[in-house]
């Protein structure tokens, strides 16, 4: 073989080897994996890592022993609540101590029961102190019995209808106050029939709670309310149909005679939720028939369509909730009046309100914050509420919150204009 041919072969062989080497290097990185990936930066409890003597029972973290609760169904909570009014020289409006006893557990014959009793002690600068020093109330007390297809619940509890809290369909249990969104429980009986992906619930309330109007006589509290709800779960989401005869949670003042009454009305409703493009959309719609309204010296029956839509989005620990609620009077006359505590104002046919709430934690710590901004479309009322919750430990928690309301002086929310509160709460749970 000539020298030139030998050289060519040598170059050729070297080139093939190099190509092979490069191909291997880039296509099989297993060989080149960093050794650091196989090192453990954490120590196991009883392991000598240098000796590589791991055992299956080792662990990187040793959990604390739990305190066995002797009475798992018993909860005791002690709270102290203080509220002040910044608009009135920071005058104290609420100062009370509450003791809540909570008992949950099984009953004979496949039953279940809950009992929550709340005892309040009002301090001298509390607004309730003038009428009572203390109060004991059954917040919740019910029994429930269930079989394979049926369930019946009897007692004092809360039924939440609709997808939107406080929305068009959430009308069975009244909300305690504007700044306390937790509904008041009522004495109810309900029964539910279950199928695979659906259920039918019926409820009956013999004596619905009605919020009275200050200094106005409340007539005829004898009306009962009842309703049924059909729930369906499918691949898209949850949907429900509602049919009910209800009593309004607040009495309506009759301008003509100065008395008040909560007149029963009928409701036909629909609600659903659906995930769309990363948002959870919830909507409620209700047709309310035979509502009463003041008109030129008499009460007339009107129909109204209420609807609400909410966009719910979770981003890391932050939750955003944007809600629109609407009330549209089907029957409308320009001399409709809405009575307030101080005056009678004209009624708008269509009312729209918006709210945006955000809640999150600070750096995923034990501190959570929340903001709620709400407004009617015509600017009759604007509300801003904000708060910080601190989970001190499993037993202790505290919160601070503030609320401010601005309302038009010549509209239906005028009594709320200038409302300001700052509240502090400290809780101990056993």
């Amino acid at each position, binding site marked *: 073989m000539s020298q030139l041919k030998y050289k060519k072969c040598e170059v050729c062989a070297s080139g093939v080897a190099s190509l092979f080497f490069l191909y291997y290097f880039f296509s099989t990185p297993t060989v080149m994996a960093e050794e650091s990936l196989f090192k453990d930066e954490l120590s196991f409890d009883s392991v000598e890592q240098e000796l590589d003597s791991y055992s299956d029972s080792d662990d990187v*973290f040793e959990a604390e022993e739990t305190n066995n609760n002797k009475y798992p169904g018993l909860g005791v*909570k002690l709270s102290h609540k203080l509220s002040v009014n910044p608009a009135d020289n920071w005058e104290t409006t609420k100062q009370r101590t509450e003791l809540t006893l909570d008992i949950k557990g099984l009953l004979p014959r496949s039953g279940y029961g809950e009992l929550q009793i709340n005892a309040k002690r009002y301090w001298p600068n509390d607004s309730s102190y003038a009428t009572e020093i203390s109060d004991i109330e059954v917040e919740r007390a019910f029994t429930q019995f269930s079989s394979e297809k049926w369930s019946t619940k009897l007692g004092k509890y809360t039924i939440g209808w609709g997808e939107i809290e406080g929305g068009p369909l959430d009308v069975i249990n009244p909300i305690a106050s504007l700044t306390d969104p937790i509904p008041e429980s009522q004495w109810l009986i309900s029964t539910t029939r279950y199928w695979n992906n659906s259920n039918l619930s019926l409820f009956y309330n013999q004596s619905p709670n009605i919020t009275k109007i200050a200094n106005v006589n409340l007539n005829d509290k004898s009306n009962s309310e009842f309703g049924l709800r059909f729930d369906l779960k499918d691949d898209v989401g949850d949907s429900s149909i509602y049919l009910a005869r209800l009593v309004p949670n607040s009495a309506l003042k009759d301008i003509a005679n100065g008395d008040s009454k909560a007149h029963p009305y009928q409701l036909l409703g629909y609600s659903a939720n659906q995930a769309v493009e990363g948002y959870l959309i919830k909507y409620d719609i209700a047709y309310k028939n035979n509502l009463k309204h003041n008109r030129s010296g008499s009460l007339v029956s009107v129909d109204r369509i209420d609807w609400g839509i909410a966009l719910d989005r979770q981003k890391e620990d932050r939750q955003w909730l944007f809600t629109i609620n609407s009330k549209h009077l089907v029957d409308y006359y320009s001399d409709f009046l809405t009575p307030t505590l101080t005056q009678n104002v004209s009624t708008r046919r269509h009312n729209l309100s918006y709210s945006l709430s955000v809640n999150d934690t600070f750096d*995923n710590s034990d501190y959570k914050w929340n903001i709620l901004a709400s407004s009617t479309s015509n600017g009759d009322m604007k509300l801003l509420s904000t708060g910080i919750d601190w989970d001190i430990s499993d037993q202790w928690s505290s919160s601070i919150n503030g609320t401010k309301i601005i309302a038009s002086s010549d509209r239906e929310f005028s009594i709320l204009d200038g409302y300001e509160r700052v509240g502090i709460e400290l809780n101990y749970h056993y």
Partner: protein
Amino acid sequence: MGPLSSKYIYSLATPILLVFVLIITSIDVNAKTNLSAREIAELADESRRKTTDSAFTKIILTTCKYGISSGKLKCAKKARIKVVESAQVNTGLNNKDVKSIAIILEPANERGIGMLSFTYDDSDRDNETWIYLSALGKVKRMSTSSNDDEETESASLFGTEITIEDQETGKLDDYSYKILGEGKFRGRSVAIIESTPKPHRLNKSRYGKTRSWIDLDRFITLKMQMFDKNKKPIKQLDAGKVEKINDIWMSRSLTFMNLVTQRLTNMKIEAINFNINIEPSFLTQRALTDQAFREKYLIDLRGQTK
């Protein structure tokens, strides 16, 4: 043979020897497993799925801010502890969907709070989660995903560092896989698998990629690192107390560390049983609202656990 031939042989020897060495070492590495990255991921997913098939567990969740001292993991502040019971079944096409319910037993002020989750293998189908709000008397569906190119986080399990996404199985077609290395880790032969979400999955996930240290004998994950979309490590999972229960290898202690907030949650499985009869009706919203039905059913399931 002339001097030119000898020189030829010697000059070729180096590249030939080099190729020979590379082939031998290559064969040696590949001989540890003939499985591809995807196959290893499938086996690990199948192994994990066995732990959710008709399983009832009692879990202790310990959450705290942590520190590392002399290589040891410790709580820097007093831990928050929750005791939870959970029932899970595999369902759907090829049993790749999971339905699960978790109920808090302790602390007392949270007792009875329940969370129902449906996770689907089909990436076109959103997972669903509901929670019962007893004060409001209603079941609330929770939003669990976001869209666009913003960072997302699925709902956490009762406020711990464990998210619904962390507990998901399936959706293997939504990721691409590669083996980063094979070797010994904590005394076991493992393969390190890097999973990267494909574009359509990326928008729904908190993580830009994950690395899993998978035991090649038992196909359980011993360690996992999660990275954000900027490839920065943000979470780590370490598995301990490995046992074989009912012929299924599993870890009874999973520690999730949030590397950003320096908080961890340890999930310790106190009791577990597989292949028990869980009625489909128990994994519905009824179990959240009908306490009598739920408690009666839980008593039956508790009697079957070890």
